């Protein structure tokens, strides 16, 4: 498969340039052994077009910076090997998020807004005592929290989600999974009723259509269907109980 001539169709638009219009631009590249989209984009930028904008940070599928539509699928560019793709590769920025330029989108602002909206931090009245031993926790509980905490906020679930594309205030799988993380955490003292006020609506848990593009596109392979269902059941129960 190596030694192929690859054709990249890349979305180009620089919003800071009033004369620029969104368009697709084509680049040719010789495939190398073990090439990823990360390698390819850097080669294009360094050798063909220094103005090309895209985001990478860890390039190891940990930080969640490089989500983009690769041949129509929201994926992390750093861990997408070109050998798994046909010789013609189309790259588009993730939908839903605000475009910064070319393939770069503002996921950071979006996720910070979600964190603020869902108050995604531990709510407790307890003061930290620096001299005391830590509170005990069952290792299984710690692991369950971590399972939800593993989300890297790359935005692939949001980009592929029909509801998130139609409804700007929808929390999406990442947001609801974040809520699930605090629901299973015994340190957080919020009640189901508290959560219902924030997510017991079509902007939260009941906005999900159940298409599961989130789960299918999640690069971390989070069990999003189970998490979303867990939150939905819990919220339905909380809503019906009163």
């Amino acid at each position, binding site marked *: 498969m190596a030694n192929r001539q690859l054709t990249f169709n890349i979305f180009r638009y620089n919003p800071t340039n009033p004369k620029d219009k969104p368009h697709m631009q084509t680049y040719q590249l010789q495939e190398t052994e073990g090439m990823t989209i990360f390698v390819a984009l850097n080669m294009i930028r360094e050798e063909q077009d220094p103005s090309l904008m895209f985001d990478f940070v860890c390039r190891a599928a940990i930080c969640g910076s490089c989500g983009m539509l690769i041949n129509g699928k929201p994926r992390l560019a750093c861990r997408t090997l070109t050998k798994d793709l046909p010789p013609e590769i189309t790259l588009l920025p993730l939908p839903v998020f605000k475009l910064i330029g070319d393939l770069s989108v503002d996921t950071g602002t979006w996720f910070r807004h979600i964190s603020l909206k869902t108050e995604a*931090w531990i709510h407790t009245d307890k003061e930290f005592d620096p001299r005391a031993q830590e509170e005990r926790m069952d290792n299984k509980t710690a692991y369950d929290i971590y399972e939800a905490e593993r989300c890297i906020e790359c935005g692939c679930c949001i980009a592929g989600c029909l509801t998130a594309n139609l409804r700007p205030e929808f929390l999406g799988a990442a947001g609801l999974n974040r809520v699930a993380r605090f629901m299973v955490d015994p340190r957080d003292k919020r009640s189901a009723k508290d959560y219902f006020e924030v997510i017991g609506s079509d902007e939260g848990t009941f906005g999900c259509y159940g298409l599961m593009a989130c789960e299918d596109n999640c690069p971390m392979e989070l069990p999003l269907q189970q998490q979303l269902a867990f939150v939905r059941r819990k919220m339905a129960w909380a809503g019906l109980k009163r």
Partner: protein
Amino acid sequence: MMNHHVHVTDVLVIGAGLAGERAAIEASLAGLDVTVLSLVPPRRSHSTAAQGGMQASLGNCAMGQGDNPDIHFEDTVKGSDWGCDQDVARLFCETAPIAVRQMAHWGVPWSRVVAGKRKLPSGKVIEEPAENEGLITARDFGGTAKWRTCYTADGTGHTLQYTMDSVVIKLGITVHDRMEAISLIHDGEKCLGAVARCLRTGNLVAYVAKSTVIATGGYGRLYTASTNAVINEGTGMSIALDTGLVPLGNMEAVQFHPTGLVPVWILITEGARGDGGYLLDKNLHRFMPDYEPKKKELASRDVVSRRMIQHIRKGYGVDSPYGPHLWLDIRHLGAKHINTNLREIANICRNFRGIDPVKELIPVRPTQHYSMGGVRTNIDGKVYGLKNLFALGEAACWDLHGFNRLGGNSLAETIVSGMIVGRKVAEHTQGVTLEYSGKLIQDNLAQQEERINNLIRGKNGKENPYKLRNEMGQVLMDYVGIFRNEQGLKTAVAKLQELHARAQKIGLQTDGRGPSPELSQALRVPGMIRLALCIAYGALQRKESRGSHAREDYPKRDDVNWLKRTLAYWPEGAELPKLDYEPVKITELPPGDRGYGESSASSTQDQPAGGGNNG
């Protein structure tokens, strides 16, 4: 000149990784107005990539019983090869357990002790004490006497950063992400903030602050093969050095991690060896016990890295198109362990190399990993040379790590120093009244604007910033790597000086409009080359071997002449750094045998590049 936005705040923190955010929290809790700048959204910081863990002597798990700050201190000092500041190490080791517990209070799902017997991969059976069930557990890491590295499955850095950022959000701390500080504002005596370029729009903003804190992480990306994130280009150190007043400490102390995945150089965490992984050579022979009978694969990183290169040089490396490498073998740990506790490693192998570590060997080679050096500060995090300026984390030379950092001590440093330095920043800032001249701010802005315009117009030349960066990376790889010698280092300095001269003539190919990535690179490269020169020149001058600094021509540690810290200054217009030295403070533990490594009595005497026992 364009009209630029000026943002006034009490505390300006540059960098939103763990260290920056922790310090920001401390200042905010003290009632100060804090503004954090970050190249990327905070949760994308390189801190998240630290999979392994955070050292703190809680002593809860079976193999950590009896642990205390004294033993942690001893391990840290030995690890540093007596290069660290012992007051700092003492303070750090005493505070680390509190830091871990506070992070638990804030929400980190630390892995916990599960009582009962279990069998280690080595065959040894241990019993976790029932009375400690549910307390924070720890795993084994290189260079430690006890199991001390607290962790959350395979994502310690990730959970720490997310929890830290949740507190930042809760406190409503102002964070300006995609904002790069490109120069410090100062009047020759005190720092007044920074000029930053917005990476969304390309606009310049002046941040004026009572106190400025540099927490920008390391410079790993100076090297071509580095485990670091691509944003780790040493920008914070660079702008500090460019003041001409602030020294960088021990820049020649560069850590190589033994296990970078060939050829993408993604880190395979020390947890793999801590949990019982082996290093094998081309004959599938486990060679580390031959060199380090006591610590085997778990000697400190500098030692394991050197032993690996030594072994490759003897012809035992596995040939590949990317040069010779060795194997990491974790197959015997079993599918269940690999797919849960070491899942990140398994995913990296599968996704970036197409191999399954449950069944296959992992190709590894030592790779640049960490910078012990950085902006030199005192124990309070106050930077030498400029008032109102602080630094912490990997960007700083607080000097916890000396010439080699222990695995698990960097995550711990970010948070512990965040607590300590953050408090000092808060105390300091409360006593400062902001006084500045508007002209100084305008002049600083105008200076940066001119620099940008010159790059865009190609006023000084047409050098390509990417080419210069790549050439610099190769020089460092070739001559300032794991083993160093006079001739190689001289070549490196000469080549880097030539690159530095060319870097004055960078000109863009594009119009540099808006958040131009080419302009970002062009603004950084000259400073990066200056950092590279500090590393190479410092290494050339240091005529001994200590920790990660291994001179083939001076293989012994020399405590008589070199028990001192390098301070590199860059006077305006200079072509080389000006080096100065200060003594290393030894308060408790006098220089001695590390217990592992080439100069240790417990190692084998088969040492092509090693020396005798320094005693």
